[in-house]
């Protein structure tokens, strides 16, 4: 177990390093950083001084080491636009994105599990066929388009929900003892107005995951229904409800929840689109704005944080998976 853990950690470290090289080279070496970093009005002397000060006259590998050293100290550069540390900017917007992502994952399970269960139990009913057709659409339709349709119907035509923004937020001081913005973290899901603002974006972001959960659940139900232990449960005279919700459902829940957990990273990545559609002030909207104005330090910081997040999530999921399933648990104990 420990050997496995150490090996996974080393692997993860390598991926982070590789990604940092790619991001660094990609952002700072393609195109002329002098153009970007130094005011175009500066004269030749000023330029040279600035180049020296920024270390741009050093060889590329040396520059990378400087970048890496700073990054390790939590310094990913200052935003040209906001003139603030890039890392701080991103951390400020992280709660909004996380809130949206978790909301979406919650919705995907809440909606996807029952639908998938139904489709698995009655695979030939018209309702199940509709559900499955819907899940194909959920997979193939671009998220932003569905987001627009949601806005058109629920905000513009019906006027039920606000179309953009985060609404009223509620500040929770020192949540978990972390205070990256100096003040408390702002959460939308704690106010009614915030929830109303969150409903559509979260649903939009959840769409792909709902389809995923439906498919996984349906496949799981169909597979589990054929198991001897389900028939045995029926042979014991249990009610259909108990057979379905305890014997079948519990077996499916673990893999489905694991996969959804594994999808946290991609949910955060895809929130870029949803946040832009609904003007949700999270990290995703920040990165799009930053790319559009070429605010490179923010771009680098975002990419590095996302990569780090991804690798951490994969690591955690790998490790916790073994703890969730009693069968795997025994094997890991034995090993």
């Amino acid at each position, binding site marked *: 177990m420990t050997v496995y853990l150490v090996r996974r950690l080393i692997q993860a470290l390598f991926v982070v390093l590789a990604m940092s090289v790619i991001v660094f080279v990609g952002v700072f070496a393609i195109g002329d950083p002098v153009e970007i970093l130094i005011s175009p009005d500066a004269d030749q002397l000023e330029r040279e001084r600035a180049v020296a000060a920024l270390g741009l006259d050093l060889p590329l590998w040396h520059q990378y080491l400087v970048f890496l050293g700073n990054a390790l100290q939590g310094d990913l550069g200052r935003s040209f636009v906001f003139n603030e540390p890039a890392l701080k900017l991103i951390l400020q917007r992280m709660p909004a994105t996380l809130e949206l992502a978790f909301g979406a994952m919650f919705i995907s399970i809440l909606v996807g599990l029952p639908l998938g269960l139904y489709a698995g139990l009655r695979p030939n009913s018209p309702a199940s066929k509709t559900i499955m057709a819907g899940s194909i659409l959920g997979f193939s339709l671009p998220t932003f388009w569905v987001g627009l349709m949601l806005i058109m119907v629920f905000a513009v035509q019906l006027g039920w929900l606000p179309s953009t923004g985060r609404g009223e937020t509620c500040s929770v001081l020192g949540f978990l003892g972390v205070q990256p913005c100096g003040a408390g973290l702002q959460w939308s899901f704690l106010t009614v107005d915030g929830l109303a603002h969150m409903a559509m974006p979260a649903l939009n972001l959840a769409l792909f995951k709902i389809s995923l959960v439906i498919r996984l659940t349906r496949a799981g139900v169909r597979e589990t229904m054929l*198991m*001897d*232990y*389900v*028939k*045995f*449960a*029926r*042979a*014991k*005279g*249990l*009610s259909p409800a*108990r057979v379905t919700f*305890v*014997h079948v459902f*519990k*077996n499916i829940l*673990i893999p489905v929840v694991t996969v959804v957990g594994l999808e946290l990273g991609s949910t955060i990545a895809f929130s870029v689109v949803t946040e832009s559609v609904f003007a949700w002030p999270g990290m995703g909207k920040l990165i799009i704005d930053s790319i559009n104005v070429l605010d490179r330090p923010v771009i680098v910081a975002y990419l590095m944080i996302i990569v780090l997040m991804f690798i951490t999530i994969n690591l955690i999921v790998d490790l916790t998976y073994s703890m969730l*399933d*009693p*069968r795997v648990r*025994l094997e890991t104990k034995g090993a």
Partner: protein
Amino acid sequence: MRAGRDAAGFPEFLPVTNAPTLEVRNLRTHFFTRAGVVKAVDDVSFSVERGKVLGLVGESGSGKTVTGFSILGLVDPPGRVTGGQILFQGRDLAKISEEEMRDLRGNRIAMIFQDPMMTLNPVLRIDTQMIETVLAHKKVSREEARQRARDTLGMVGIPSPDERLKSYPHQFSGGMRQRVAIAIALLHEPELIVADEPTTALDVTIQGQILAEVQKLAQTTGTSLIWITHDLSVVAGLADDVAVMYAGRIVEKGAVSDVLDHPLHPYTAGLIGSVPSRNKRGEPLRQIPGMTPSLLNLPPGCAFRSRCPRAAEACMAEPEIREILPGREARCFLPLTAAAEQAA
């Protein structure tokens, strides 16, 4: 000539009623697959009396498990019980509602499955799986249900049942799991247990222990048993009566000693001939040539015809099961009566 149970030292203290616990008449269970109709159980009749053990024997795919599932109403689509009666204490199980059937399942009729590694739900603890069975049929507190589970586990020979109740199935060996499954079957002291090759997957010593325990339990509680197996030696040691199945039909039935000593049907004879035993030492083991026919679109005539050493012109027609000697039935035009008559 058959040594009765009482003679073997078991007091016949239970009241004896003449009505059998279970009587199956002309049962048909067919699977309507894309490729065609699979007649997994076709015109099967037998009965089991109170406290008696019926051995249901046959090769793989002969329809034994499907017969068991039919009795418990557990045949799933594309399968369906298409005809016949399943009279349990006089009630026809083929006609009652699913709710009524559920009341009986696990309560008055229990089943033990073939593969002990697959019958217990891997993600639920043993206590959950036992207590839910108690609570499904009895209005008792959880604590009482747990008590019952613990007692029953002890009864089937599981040491320190209190601890064991808190375990997951994967922490048990195959033999232990089958004991748990048997304990679950015994929770409500049912009138009938369908045991589907419960010991086949276990090693011989464990098999012997379990057989002995089940036999004892059946006798003390008056439970009737249908013991499905393809192992004739198990039948010889355990059953009172035996029914031999071939290709979805019963080809021979009668008292164990009669059938095993002097089989009437060539298939039964073949089965017995292929079992190694002490008094046949030195003789070559005889295999039944050929393979079980596909139950999909069986050709007309006797289903055993292509493999039967006695097959003749007459066998192109379909034999009916009939009483050939008193108390002995077989489905064959040319039964092996000579030896049997001599013995009788």
